[in-house]
Structures are given as C-alpha cells and as structure tokens.
C-alpha cells in the first residue's frame, strides 16, 4: 500500500486530514477489468469512507516488450510496431520514431513530406482528443458527447483510410519521408473536413462547458500545481492546464512547426475542468495549423535519399515530439548495424500516470474515475 513516503514531502501537497477516531480505513481494488480505467489498469485505493487517502497503480498487463522487439528488427521493420503503443495516436508515434532515425542517419524529409506529416499528425491530435472527450464524458455520465465525437472522428479516419489504407495503426510515415503521395482530392477533403469540424467544436462545448453537472463534476477535481507537474515530469495538456506554457512544438520545434502560427492554450487552476478547456482549445489550434499547412502544400519529392538497407553510424540520439498526451521521446543507440542496439521509448502516459496518486488524494471515489479520464492515458503506451 502506498504510504506517504518522504519523497513527496517537498511537494505542494496537502496532507490528508486526520481520519475520524472511529473511521476504519478501507482498501479496495479497482480494475484491472473496469470500464472506466481505459484499458487494463489496476488501482488499489486506500479509503476513509468515500475519501481517497492514497492509491497505488498496478500496471504491466499489456506489456509486450516493444523495446526488446526493437533490438531484433531492422530500423524499417520496427516502424509499424511503434503505432501499437498509443494506438489512438499512431501517427504521432510514427512521426517521433521516423524523425529520430532520420537524426541518426543525418537526413531530413523534404518540405512536401514535412507538410503532409504535419497535416496528418495534427488531424491525429484532433482524433485523439475527440476520443478522449467522448470517453471521459461517458465516464462522468454524459452519454451524448461520445456519439458526437465518434461521428466526427470517423471523418478523420476516412482521410487516413484513403491516404494509406489503414484507419488506426496507420504506419503513415517512412524513415526519410512518406511512402505514398497524397491521393487526388486530398487537399479538398482536408479543407472540407476543417469546414465541417469547426462548428462541431462549438457543439461539443455547448453540451458541456456550461452544463451544471459537468462543471460540478470537474471543477476543483484532481488539482495539480505547476510545481508538482514539473517535479513529476508531467507533460502535455495536463501540464499546460496548470499554467505552464510549454509545448515542444514551440519550445524545441521539430518537423516544420516553426512555419505555422498557433497559440499554446493554458489553464489556471490545474483542475479537470481546465484540462477539458485546454484540450478543446488545442483542437481549435490544430485546425488552424492544418488549415495553414494544407493551404501552402509545396510541390516536390516526398522521400529523401535514404539507403535501402539502413545502417546509421554508431551513436545515440534522443528526440522527442509533442504527442497528444505529452512528450513522447525516443532514445535510440546505433552500433552501426542494420538493427538498433537499443530503442527506448519515453511514453507520456507512463510518466503522467504517476501523478494520479497526488491528484486523487482527498477526493471522492467517484472523482478517481474523472481523474483517470482527464489524464488521458492509453494503457498500450503505459505498458508498451
């Protein structure tokens, strides 16, 4: 059971109030098979009545040894495997991996490929946030948003399907650029989607933003301060909702994000409601980015000159991107052969999930569901 260990003492953490004299502490188990844990996550809760005193996460149920597999596949062969980590944002995983290997090979994808990459990755951010919104709202008891978001997410998946034949685990990018040229009518369809989707965000917000039940269930729930976020290494919308204006697309631009205008939405209170607002604003910003990218799609090759058999020179590189969930990093060690000597994935969900304990302390059991939802974890990525 999680004791209040000394390592947490330097955080801005309110210590749980003393239990009543007659209160019995209760330990209950949630998961691993539970509809609101978004996969197979087991949480052991220590309760005082309805109040959470602390919790411990038990993870690893989906561990497939992705990093080990990486050492036994060539650089090209490993590419589709990374899609299976965060399977709702497969395109982002692929982008991070391809860019890291490109760094090792010292090649850069041509401008047209970069543009298409940005378009697909930002569409994926929207799709990931839509899935998050639908399931998160469903967890809290609002059923309608799920139908709305899945209906609209379908349009993005259709674009993927037309582009590369796959809807979820797309394997859309190749090391050095793209395998496929865009299909005819790609630009028009993306533009149509943007025109279709923009009013939909207002529709989602109409359902929830001022909905009294939603507000009561999310405001002041699962608060985490900026200082705690940084101490825990929490990144992504969770960090930004606590008021830290930090986004890798701006802080250390990769792909060609520096060519596009967009803002980084931030919150103030670091509660579940603010994280909801930040993600809604991020969808709007993604629409902005895609609009600019698709409007100025350059002509040219889609693949850089890369050898058929890739043998990056011996060396090691850490490269990270802003995935929908936070900082997704790859640390690859090459020994000069066709296979990576070591592939390490730094998954955002894994690190963010660590903060669940401090975010839930002092909350009610029902709020644990809300906080797991608001962290937006994908267990495929936590366990790898």
């Amino acid at each position, binding site marked *: 059971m999680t004791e209040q260990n000394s*390592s947490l003492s330097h955080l801005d953490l309110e210590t749980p109030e003393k239990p009543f004299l007659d209160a019995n502490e209760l330990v209950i188990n949630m998961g691993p098979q539970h509809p609101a844990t978004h996969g197979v996550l087991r949480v052991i809760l220590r309760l005082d009545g309805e109040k959470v005193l602390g919790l411990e996460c038990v993870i690893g149920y989906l561990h497939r040894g992705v990093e080990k597999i990486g050492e036994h596949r060539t650089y090209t062969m490993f590419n589709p495997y990374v899609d299976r980590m965060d399977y709702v944002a497969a395109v982002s995983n692929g982008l991070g991996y391809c860019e890291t290997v490109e760094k090792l090979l010292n090649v850069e994808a041509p401008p047209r490929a970069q543009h298409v990459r940005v378009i697909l990755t930002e569409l994926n951010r929207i799709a990931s946030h839509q899935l998050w919104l639908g399931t998160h709202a469903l967890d809290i008891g609002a059923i309608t948003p799920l139908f709305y978001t899945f209906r609209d997410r379908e349009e993005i998946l259709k674009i993927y399907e037309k582009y590369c034949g796959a809807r979820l685990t797309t394997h859309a990018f190749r090391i050095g650029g793209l395998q496929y040229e865009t299909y005819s009518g790609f630009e028009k369809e993306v533009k149509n989607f943007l025109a279709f989707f923009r009013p939909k965000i207002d529709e989602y917000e109409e359902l929830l933003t001022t909905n009294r039940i939603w507000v009561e269930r999310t405001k002041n729930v699962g608060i985490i301060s900026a200082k705690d976020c940084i101490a825990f290494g929490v990144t992504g919308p969770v960090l930004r909702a606590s008021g830290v204006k930090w986004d890798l697309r701006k802080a250390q631009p990769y792909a060609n994000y520096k060519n596009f205008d967009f803002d980084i939405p931030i919150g103030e209170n670091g509660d579940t409601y603010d994280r909801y607002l930040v993600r809604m604003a991020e969808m709007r910003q993604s629409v902005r980015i895609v609009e600019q990218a698709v409007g100025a799609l350059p002509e040219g090759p889609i693949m850089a000159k890369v050898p058929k058999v890739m043998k990056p020179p011996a060396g090691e590189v*850490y490269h990270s991107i802003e995935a929908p969930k936070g900082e997704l990093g790859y640390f690859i060690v090459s020994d000069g052969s066709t296979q990576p000597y070591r592939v390490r994935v730094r998954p955002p969900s894994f*690190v963010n999930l660590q903060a669940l304990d401090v975010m839930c302390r002092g909350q009610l059991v029902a709020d644990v569901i809300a906080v797991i939802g608001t962290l937006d974890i994908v267990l495929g990525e936590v366990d790898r």
Partner: protein
Amino acid sequence: MVAKLKGNYGSGIEPLTYAGQNYMVVDRSLIPEILQVLRNEEEFDYCVDITAVHYPAREKQFDVVWVLYSHARNERIRVKTQIADGASLPSSVPIWTGANWLEREVFDMFGIKFDGHPDMKRILLPDGWKGHPLRKDYGILQQDNEWVQINLGIESGQ
C-alpha cells in the same frame, strides 16, 4: 555550464556532442553530486527519462542514462555513467519525484538497483518474475516458464 562543471570536477566529466545533442559521460562516483548540482544550480528541473543500455562484453556492463531538461534554459542534457553488473546507483527520487517509476522500470528491465528508492520493486513484469528482459543475454523468446506454469496454469510454460 559544462566548462564550469569540468573545471570543478576535472577528469571525472567528459562533455561530448553527437548529432547536435549534448551529453556528458560522468564517473560513477560523481553521479550523486552532479545530479544534485544540475538540479539545484543549473535549473534542470524536469527529469525526462532514465534508462540503461547493456554491453555484455564490457567490464562495466551497463550505461545508465538520465535525460534532463531545464524549463528556464530550454535546454536538454544527457548524463551517462557506466556501472558494473550488480552495482547500484543512488536513487534520484529525492531530486525529481518523477524518477520513481522510471527507476523502477530500469530495475525491472535490467536489474540495476537504486539505493534509497522508496519502493524498489518491479513495475511492468509480475513481482515473482525471474530475469531482466532487456539484458542482451535474455533471449527474445525467453520467458519465466515456471511463473507462467504456476500463475497462468499453462503446462508448457509458453
């Protein structure tokens, strides 16, 4: 910054750059101090990742790597050290709270222990599992057959 550290600690630190990324190879004995200095004096307040690499042919078999980021400087640095099989490292949980799970994963996958860690146990694999899968001598098809037989009731263990 690296020049200053180099001046203070001399030959224990070797600053290097590869593909435009800075990292430093630090002697094992200097690790606790260097990490503390990086956190407190150089403002590397965000511990991005902790991981290890196994080189079975070497005398000191493991590279342990800390990836650090500073919000104030918008800068990354990697700290790397070599340790022998069976040797342990000081835990950096008192420096960065988020190091907790990352160190547990290094222990789980490589069997490197971190002294002073509040909860040094496996994280992804089951507690009773034998072996550390990311070591190079652990085969890709290998698993703890005994554990599988006992806990999952699969007789072949596969």
